[in-house]
């Protein structure tokens, strides 16, 4: 009887420990462990297709959550239980490249560089460590009804900064609860994505090609001064509030991503809106730049199945496979070029704009200190918008702080 008790307690303990997340990580030959963030049902078919084409290779797919996926990847690397292939957001890749945990895929890059966008975040010191998989550009959303009410032509969206400002001013004047433009404020991870669209469009940037900080450039100053003026005709709030007001028809314009196409259709079916490229400085100068986030595929350097993992990565990021994923999730687009000529994307007036925008988009700079740099940049923009600093002083202070970060990673 005593024996049964001990056994049952031991069994219970084992169950508790197993439930505690001590997953086993036994190495099996020919099995690729692949961690990614998309719904498993969307990725499974693409992976099974790969297995069918590559007999003998088995793929174990695991879905990570956006809330805790990164922590799980960090813990796995620290304990040596990382998968063979993993999806990483573009802002994270540079740190991983720098730490030397990623397999060098420069050879693949040399072979297929021109067939894909968004390589930048995978570059570090002249080598390539990640393959671009899918990407999401940010475009200008505008409310057609408010355009009409303000005497603007919805078929002719603002193309330059001046036109954007004029449109924002007219819509802002319509009534007290209507705002011209939606400007992010009071949140940590979004500000730079919206502001840098203007800075990049004006030829500005954060780091130059050789990695020097150029955040205090004249181009950035012009962009920030413009942004400051634009903020007078803006609702300055968090993204949720901007989205809420846009859906309620109280916000004229905002810059945001493709997930809204799905959200607005579900949550505000009566809303008449269109999308356009982010305006450029003027008809003669600058580009329609914007921010894009890319999802990258990385092979870990200590994987026992590097070749197979890389083969799977190359299968996944091919245009057709990436397209299958994108058409399901409806918030991102293939990093592989081709969507612009594909009726599956270009056939839809709104989706076409996103695909076109991605051709002139940039990702966050490929620097291992980016996470810290992002905080510095967001804070400098916020200080200007709250009137705590003038643009020139904010940019120069931020540039000094950025130089300290850059120096630490030299």
């Amino acid at each position, binding site marked *: 009887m005593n024996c049964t*008790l001990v056994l049952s307690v031991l069994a219970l*303990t084992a169950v508790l420990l197993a439930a505690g997340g001590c997953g086993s990580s036994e190495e099996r030959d020919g099995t690729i462990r692949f961690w990614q963030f998309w719904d498993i049902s969307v990725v499974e078919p693409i992976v099974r297709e790969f297995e069918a084409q590559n007999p003998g290779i088995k793929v174990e797919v695991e879905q990570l959550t956006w809330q805790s996926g990164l922590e799980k990847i960090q813990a796995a690397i*620290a304990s040596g239980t990382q998968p063979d292939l993993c999806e990483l957001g573009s802002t994270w890749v540079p740190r991983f490249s720098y*730490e030397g945990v990623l397999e060098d895929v420069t050879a693949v890059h040399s072979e297929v560089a021109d067939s894909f966008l968004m390589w930048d975040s995978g570059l570090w010191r002249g080598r390539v460590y990640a393959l671009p998989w899918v990407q999401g550009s940010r475009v200008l959303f505008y409310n057609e009804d408010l355009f009409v009410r303000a005497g603007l032509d919805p078929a002719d969206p603002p193309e330059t900064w001046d036109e954007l400002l004029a449109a924002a001013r007219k819509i802002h004047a319509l009534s007290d609860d209507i705002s011209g433009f939606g400007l992010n404020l009071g949140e940590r991870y979004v500000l730079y994505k919206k502001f840098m669209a203007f800075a990049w469009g004006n030829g500005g940037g954060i780091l130059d090609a050789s990695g020097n900080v150029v955040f205090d450039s004249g181009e950035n100053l012009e962009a920030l001064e413009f942004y400051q003026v634009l903020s007078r005709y803006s609702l300055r709030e*968090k993204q949720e509030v901007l989205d809420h007001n846009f859906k309620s028809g109280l916000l004229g314009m905002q810059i945001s991503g493709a997930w809204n196409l799905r959200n607005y259709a579900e949550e505000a079916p009566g809303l008449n809106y269109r999308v356009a490229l982010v305006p450029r400085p003027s008809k003669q100068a600058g580009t329609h730049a914007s921010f894009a986030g890319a999802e990258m595929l990385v092979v870990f350097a200590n994987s026992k199945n590097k070749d197979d993992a890389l083969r799977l990565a190359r299968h996944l990021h091919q245009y057709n496979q990436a397209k299958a994923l994108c058409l399901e999730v409806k918030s991102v687009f293939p990093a592989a070029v081709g969507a612009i000529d594909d009726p599956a994307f270009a056939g839809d007036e709104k989706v076409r704009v996103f695909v076109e925008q991605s051709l002139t988009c940039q990702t966050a700079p490929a620097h291992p200190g980016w996470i810290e740099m992002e905080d510095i940049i967001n804070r400098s923009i916020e200080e200007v918008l709250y009137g705590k600093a003038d643009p020139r002083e904010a940019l120069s202070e931020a540039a000094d702080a950025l130089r300290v970060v850059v120096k630490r990673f030299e």
Partner: protein
Amino acid sequence: MLTNNAAGRGTSRLSPILTLLLPWALVYAVFFLFPFVFSFVLAFLKYNPLNVQNTTWVGLENFARLFQDERFVRALRNTLVFVVGTVPMTTAAALGLAVLLRGRVPGKSILKAGFFLPSIISMVVISLVFKLFYSPSGGLNNALSLIGLGGHGWLTDPATALGAIMIMDVWAAVGYYAIIFDAAFAGIPREMYEAAHLEGAGFKDTLRYVTIPMLRPVIAFVLVINTIRSFQIFIEVFVMTQGGPLGATDTLVLYLYEAAFRGLDYGYASAIAYVVFILSGIFSILVVRRFRPQFGSGGVA
């Protein structure tokens, strides 16, 4: 022989107890004791999960860095404001609520359940609801617009963001502690009230000389639990403001989370964690000392 026998019997009596404790003890060791000790060691290391081979011993450097770090000082200040601002408020309000609940109130049990409700709802859900409630077109501003005010972004204004979160936190916590006080009231012998009544004590005197002194251990308990919980404030700011605007709601645990999982500086994050631990320890000891039961001292502190 005799000793052996005794020892043997002792073990056989002990072993079922140990066996029954084993599952709990193992879980405790793995998920509490180990991280507790490990993070203490981490606080003296430079530890990056992506590069554990290059872990180095840095002694007290992580702690020395703290006080030159503007963001840490800001987070410390905000956290102290939060603790000092919410804990007495929550405790006083909970006590007041419990006193009211002792009186003849219609629908008392429904009220009690209502007060308790926020403490069984996930803090994430409460935070999301309040995020909308505080927005310019949210419930608070709609209510204020009735008296000609409103349109204020409570969480985007650096002057009001922390206060708004503190008020939400008091609201969310008060019911739980009120129920604890309510239960403690039931433990005060009726005779003491009868005696006080015979002595001619009114409501105020009864409260001062009977209720409060008898509740001292429970007040101490509530203060300690609430202090520890408040030092650990994280979910609210993570969901509602991420420390913004302009760092107005940066707190210690939010900073340690970002230092570890975004900055990959686990050593520094552990140092911050131990600052939180030591501060809540000091505050708890002060509270316990102040509210130690004082029988026979006439109930006057």
